[in-house]
């Protein structure tokens, strides 16, 4: 007892860490990713590995040689960005495009704003949208699901549930396919059940709260129900909106990104409702069949404003 440490309270810490949270997110993404590997085979595996590898590598290189600071790749956030970016890409996209997307995600969307926690936009989504705008054809030709296929760039392509079924019939087999993930789409967005499993894990581990995903899904369900009831010929069924396309992936893994979403439950609900509305508007009235990415990025831009005006419920 020669030396005692003097510091202000509290003298104990709960043991939570950035690593623990990132590990939790990675575990939560596993079911959806594995379904992707199953239905899109070799291509999905290559895209994921390249995406994760390039995100980590770019973060390391930028921190080590450009910023000349101690690299923080061990915190796991670059891995999360890498997996998320991959989950948002079709499995037949060329490797060099994946790397370009990773460079944009890490270099522009994350590191140029000051790294983890300081980025205003979700890096993986920024990467995805950058690729979507730059290479619209490659980014919208979705491979058909073919269990454990070894095809990569030569995969059979088709349309996604959202673009093919727009306004069409919705029957039980189709819904079952959407639930398990047997449809065309980005490699991590296809299986509703796998993504919901991930959501349950995130909620159970208290990594995220329910506010953002639930408010997005409820808003989309309500808004599309109204449209569908008013004109079933023109507007797709709410089930299709919820299960087809990237809505679940966005609501569970993208919109809940810590740095780019509001910091109290009320703000989170406003944020979620905003994403829901913008998604439906883009899907039903815009030029793109898919609107989740844009909706999340637009609401990311509103996050500081929401934080400024919407305060948590105070005591008393």
């Amino acid at each position, binding site marked *: *007892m020669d*030396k*005692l*440490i*003097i*510091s*202000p*309270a*509290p*003298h*104990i*810490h*709960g043991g*939570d*860490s*950035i690593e*623990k*949270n990132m590990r939790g997110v990675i575990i939560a993404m596993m079911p959806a990713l594995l379904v992707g590997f199953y239905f899109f085979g070799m291509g999905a595996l290559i895209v994921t590995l390249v995406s994760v590898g390039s995100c980590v590598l770019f973060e390391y290189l930028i921190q080590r040689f450009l910023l000349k600071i101690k690299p*923080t790749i061990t*915190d796991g*956030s670059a891995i999360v960005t890498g997996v998320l970016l991959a989950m948002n890409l079709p499995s037949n996209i060329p490797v060099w495009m994946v790397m370009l997307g990773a460079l944009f995600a890490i270099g522009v969307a994350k590191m140029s704003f*000051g*790294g*983890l*926690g*300081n980025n205003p936009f979700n890096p993986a989504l920024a990467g995805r949208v950058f690729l979507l705008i730059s290479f619209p054809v490659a980014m919208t030709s979705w491979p058909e699901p073919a269990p454990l296929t070894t095809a990569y760039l030569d995969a059979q392509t088709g349309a996604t549930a959202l673009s093919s079924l727009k306004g069409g019939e919705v029957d039980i087999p189709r819904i079952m396919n959407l639930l398990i993930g047997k449809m065309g789409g980005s490699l991590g967005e296809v299986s509703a059940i796998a993504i919901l499993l991930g959501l349950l894990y995130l909620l159970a581990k208290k990594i995220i*709260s329910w506010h953002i995903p639930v408010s997005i899904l409820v808003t989309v369900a309500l808004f599309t129900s109204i449209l569908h009831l008013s004109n079933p010929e023109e507007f797709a069924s709410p089930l299709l909106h919820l299960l087809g396309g990237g809505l679940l992936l966005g609501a569970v893994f993208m919109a809940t990104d*810590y*740095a780019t*979403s*509001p*910091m*109290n439950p009320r703000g989170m609900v406003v944020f979620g409702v905003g994403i829901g509305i913008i998604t439906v508007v883009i899907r039903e009235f815009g030029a793109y069949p898919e609107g989740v990415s844009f909706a999340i990025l637009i609401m990311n831009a509103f996050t500081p404003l929401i*934080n400024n005006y919407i*305060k*948590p*419920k*105070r*005591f*008393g």
Partner: protein
Amino acid sequence: MKTFRIGGIHPKENKFSAGQRIKTVALPDRVVIPLAHYSGMPSRAVVKKGDFVKVGQLIGQADGYVSANVHSSVSGRVSKVDVQLDASGYKRPAVFIDVEGDEWLESIDLTTDIKRECHFTKEEILTKIQSAGIVGLGGATFPAHVKLAPPPGKKAEVLIINGVECEPFLTCDHQLMLEKGEEIMVGITILMKVLAVEKAVIGIENNKQDAVEYLRKIAKSYPGIRVVPLKVRYPQGGEKQLIDAILRRQVPSGKIPIEVGTVVMNVATTFAVYEAVQKGKPLMERVMTISGKEVQNPGNYLVRLGVYLSEVVNQAGGVPERTGKIIGGGPMMGRSLMNLDVPMAKGSAGIVFVPDRDSVRGQDRNCIRCAKCVTVCPMGLEPFLLMNQSEREMWDEMEQNRIMDCIECGSCSYTCPSNRPLLDYIRYGKTTVGFRIRSRKAAKV
């Protein structure tokens, strides 16, 4: 099960000393009785060098509205009235007494019989509480008589007794409830009489099931007293959180509990009230917990005021090897001590020894904006924002964001995955903003 509605955490309870019977610490050769309290003005010494004092004799006269009397805890001769480094880390006035025998004032009833009847009037009781120097023993050491005399026009409907003890490690209140349950019940009836209330509720976290059951059993013979078990959740022992948990009422920002019709008293304070009113014994000793992960004999000790903590620790088995930090109080809100040569004070509820491997904080990193600090804040504040504003000295903005509501429970720093020193900065901001508010008010007057 009931608990408060906003925020909160559940740190590892580590109540190693639970169930340990209260042991009395032997008298040392010398005591140094602090005249200063955590809150309010220090009392004024009414003895001088060479005076002989008995146990229970007044040595410090309350000086001001928020101040309390101080009594000698030993018999002996005053060697000097000087300043002494105390647990707060400041040198403050104290009375030094060389112990001679153990001679008590004749007016103090030393029998252990429980005296249930109380024939004093409300005013007489208040005077006894005031002259006995009773302060809140839960931590804030606010004079009890001030709390018990609500401002004109305000009336309490229910008395809340705080038996929560939500700090990890500490068990002194728990053990006191088990060993002095009857006395506490009588103390509650006395407090009910003072406040003219019909109802009293004892709130106890349900990790103290034995205390809940025992007090429930004996409460049957005390009309109006109810025991409510509460879900374990920190900081439930905070006055505002406890009221919310039990009454579902939230004390408005900047207001005190009487605003929602209640007064909160700690169980140890209630026991002190019993002793003062029924036995004529002033507050000159209290129960404290000595604990820690590597402490050989964690336990609960009855210690007289002014005994050096080193003395208490020696009698309890000494300082464990490889201790890196010594906390006066609990690990969430206690202060780390520079050494153990500080005297026992009215607010000393425990000493916790932290092994050196747990003593150092983790490296702080970027805020990842996970909002966990917002989720756990029991006052509904935004700790991340207050810290940022404190770093940038944005005092007006901090005031608007209700910095003064912060109860400094430390839940934010405890939770932060990036180990950010949230409460350190918030405390700095709160001190400055508090000072600015007071000077603004002074300027108006």
